[in-house]
Each structure stands twice: as C-alpha cells, then as structure tokens.
C-alpha cells in the first residue's frame, strides 16, 4: 500500500467579521493581533486528511507564513488532524509580494521533505492575489491542477474535476503535484475536544526566511510599491421599505420605470 504524505499551505488571517484595514505608515494589510485559520484553507486540510485516510496511511503537515509569531490559526488545522506545522515568521516578511510568498512557502514545503501532494486554497479570503498556489508549483517544479472541485487518487494518479468557465474538466495528473481546491470541495470537520487538546502538544517549528535561504523578502523583495490609496465612490442607497403584503407592487412599478416590463 502506498502511503500519502501531504503538505497543506494555510493562511492565518484577521477575523473577516472585523473590517480589514491598512497600516497607515506602510499601506500594507494589517495582520497584527489574533489570527484565525482562513475558512478557504479548512477545505484543503479536510481534503488532505481524507486522501490520507483513503490511501491507508501517511501524514498531513501544514506550512504557513506570518510576520509575527502567531500560531492560533495553525492550531485549528492541527486540531482537525494535521500532524505538524512549519511557520515561517520573520518581521522582514512584511510587505512581501505574491512571488516572494510563494518562494518562502515552497522552501518551507521542502524543509518538511518533498511530499506526494501539496494542497492550497484557490485564493485567500483577505488578500486574493490568487496566484500563489501556481507560483509554488512552478518554484517546486511540480505539475498543478488549480480550481479542483473533486479530488481522488487512483493508482498513484490524481483524478480531478477542475472548474472551468463552461462547466468542468476531468483531469489526470501524476504525483507529486500541487492542487488548489475550491470552497465546498469537501465538508470540513469541526475539531473534536480531544483534537484541540492534542493540537496543543503538536510541534510547530518556527523558522525565518533567512533560515530557509530566501532573500530578499518583504518590501525590498517586492517588485511593486504603493502608489496611492483612495476611497472608492460609494454607491448611494435608495428606498428601503418594509413589506406590508403589497411591496411586490413597488417592484412592479420600479420594473415599469425601467421599461423592462
């Protein structure tokens, strides 16, 4: 039986329930304070756990990058069942662009030893550059299948349904490979109480970008600089009414003024 070793790239983000903001001095997205596991990544962790179970053996590890030493989001992934984590934490990473992020995460994956499969979310909730997974694949020299909405492994070959504009494609790809998964690909489990307790004892190795040999990083490594930050023109709210049983008439009248009926 072939065991599956999988590394999932996860992002720890500020709670999306609280509005995002920019650091006024640098115009970088603020990621201080408590960070949670990006919802998008819970799908990847769950997918990895299911693939390892289906293979009959193997391990799920996680890698993450954060300017401060925050690990609470990673603990959620460990509580779900991942076995260990590598956090690349380095104040110098602040301001890193997507390319640098991909180089750093690729180096972290290699530190764990090349797995059979690397999984990432299609895009993060807070940054949405949307290129990092494919960039990691290129740095690692791996084939990749992005936007996977169904994943299984059959005889050492990935069989994936990949979203397209028109529907989906059935794709085959040999291992090792990188897959980016969409939300809804699987139903993420809630960590059990035992899982949460066990997660506290699981190892998270913290390394710097320098330890991984990646430089330059942060603002100096980014091939871009902030030009301006402005408020977008806000759309004006119109009329809001409570339905008294006759509100549909207001809609009919509005449709008439628009000449669509």
């Amino acid at each position, binding site marked *: 039986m072939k065991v599956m070793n999988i590394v999932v790239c996860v992002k720890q983000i500020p709670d999306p329930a609280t509005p*995002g903001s920019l650091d006024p001095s640098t115009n970088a997205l603020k990621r201080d304070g408590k960070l949670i596991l990006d919802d998008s990544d819970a799908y990847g962790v769950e997918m990895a756990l299911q693939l390892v179970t289906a293979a009959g053996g193997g391990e799920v590890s996680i890698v993450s990058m954060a300017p401060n030493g925050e690990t609470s989001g990673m603990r959620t992934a460990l509580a779900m069942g991942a076995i260990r984590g590598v956090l690349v934490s380095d104040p110098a990473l602040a301001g890193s662009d*997507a*390319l640098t992020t991909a180089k750093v995460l690729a180096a972290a994956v290699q530190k764990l030893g090349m797995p059979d499969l690397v999984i990432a979310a299609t895009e993060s909730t807070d940054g*949405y*550059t*949307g*290129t*990092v997974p*494919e*960039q990691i*694949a*290129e740095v690692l*020299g791996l*084939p*990749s299948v*992005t*936007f996977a909405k169904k994943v299984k492994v059959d005889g050492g070959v990935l069989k994936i349904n*990949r*979203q397209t*504009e*028109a*529907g989906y*494609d*059935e*794709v*085959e*790809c040999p291992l090792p*490979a990188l897959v980016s998964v*969409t*939300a*809804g690909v699987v139903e993420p489990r809630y960590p059990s109480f035992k899982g949460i307790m066990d997660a506290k004892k699981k190892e998270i190795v913290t390394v710097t970008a320098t330890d991984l040999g990646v430089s330059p990083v942060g603002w100096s490594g*980014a*091939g*871009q*600089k*902030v*030009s*301006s*930050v*402005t*408020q*977008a023109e806000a759309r004006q*709210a*119109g*009329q*809001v*009414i*409570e*339905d008294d*049983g006759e*509100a*549909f008439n*207001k*809609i*009919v009248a*509005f*449709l008439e003024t*628009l000449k*669509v*009926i």
Partner: protein
Amino acid sequence: MTVNNIWVFAQGSNGTITSFTAELLTKARSLTPNVSAFVAGDGAGLAEALGKFGAKKVYSTGDLGGRFAGVAAASTMQALIAGGDKPDLILFPQNYDGRDTIARLSVKLGVTVLTNSVDIVVNGDEVVATTPIFGGNVLFAAAFTGSGPHLASFRPKSFAAEECSGAPAEVVTVTVPDTGKTAAAKVMVVHVEETSGPKLDEANIVVAGGRGLGESQNFAMVEELSKLLHAAPGASRAIVDAGWVPYSYQVGQTGKVVKPSLYIAAGISGATQHMVGMKGSKNIIAINKDKEAPIFAVADLGIVGDLHKVLPKLIAALKARG
C-alpha cells in the same frame, strides 16, 4: 519605463474571441499601437477577430492536446522573451487559464504580478495598476518597480470593448518548449453545463438567489422570475457551496462579475465577496428579511420582508400582465 509593446493573453474559439479578450485589447491599444495577442491554442482561426480589436500580431501555439494553457503559455512566452522578443507589459484576464499563466510566468521571469486589477495607467516611467480592496470600498494603486515585462491581470468588464476595424492580425506560429513533468496534467474529458436563456455575464437582467431561499427547491422561484423577465438566473456562493445550483451560476469575487441594467437579489445578505461581483449593476432590487443586511446599502429599491411571500405575488402579478 515607457510602454511601447504590449501582449494580451487572448482566448476564443470558432473564430470568435471572448468579450474579456476584446476588453483587454481595447485597453492595450489605448496605451500603444503596438499590440500583440498570445493564444494558447489555435490563434490563426482568431486572427481576424483579434485584428478587429487592434492586435497587429497573434502568437499561436496551435492545439495543446489536452495540456493546460498555464504551463504551455508561460514557457512559450519565456522562450520568446529570452530570444529577444520582449514586451513591456503583458495583460491577462483574471480567469482560470489567465491566472495559471501569469503565476507560472512570474516565477520563470522572476518578476512580480499585480492581479485583480480594474485599471492600468502609464504615468511617464511609472506603470500603475489599481485594485479595489475591502469589497471595493478602497482603491489600491500599485506601481511596478524593476524592469519588465510587467505582468498584470484584470477583472472582467474593467474596460469597455470597442472595435477599431483593424486588419487581421499577422499569425506567428510558436512552438511550446518541453517543460517535462510540470506539463504532466492532462484534460481527459470536457463537460459543458448548459444553461438555458441569456448568459449570466452578458444578460441585461439578472435574478439571483441566496441562502434566504431556505431550501434548494425554492430556487425554482428565481428561475421562474428569470424566465418572466428574460433574465439570467444567478446565485450567491453560499448556495453554490451547498450544492443547490452549479458553480456556473455564482456571482461574486470567485464567480462571475455582472453589470446588468437590473440586478434582483432575493435572499442574499450581501457578503463582500458577492457585492464585488454585482455592485456595478445599473439598478439593484433587494429582497431580504433582515433589514440590517448589507445588500440594502447598495439597493435602489429594498424590500424588507419574507421572499416566500413577496416572490410568489410578484410572479403572479407579472404573469397576470401576460
């Protein structure tokens, strides 16, 4: 760096280019007359359509035989650039193949990417791309530093497409280099999920449903109202994730961006990721039982109420008009 030579990652089939491609070509030729298209596939068949929107030249890889566009296009572009055919700027659509290609190419060239943009301007030596963040409330403009080619990707409908009646683009056949195992993924079967009526991203009216519908069979109300208004049915991410409707219905940041003249949101609260995809609609009607729902902040007409009561009455009233 001045911009004298732009490539556009172009897509199309059966002699027709996508509206997205036409938009990017229109923008490109407003920056320089020297615009080329790059097609990961049969570019020759698109030469006429590309020329009409200002492409002077089209690089064509020919049929990829099931290989992904991302690796094939990026490695071919890299080879062209290494051979001295170097654009100052390459524009990509923010879609499946566009994203894969810009990502692969950025690593191959060691340059940054500016993605999810809605505008690009050249100010003397600076090339600046603008991206809306925080659900579009803030416009973040970033300038490329270092040498090109600069790589930028754009959201659909960022630019208006306009023909310029140019001659057919000159076809340059290019060979995809052997990239070994990175090209190992293969498309085996293509599935097209047919939807009836107008296409979601081209429809003049969109009727979209969300979690407020309660259960999957209630989406039938959205479909019925769509039919009556000759509209395209759409959906929030929540009910696509729940499996009620296919992904092709999804409106939002990870789905389709729509700008119809009328958008009707039924049972959609207006999460940031949804609003990004529909805020550009000319008129918005929202029906939601929660009067605090963010969707009401952008609605021209907001009905606070139970859509299970409002929609059947609205449908009946429209039917009565015949």
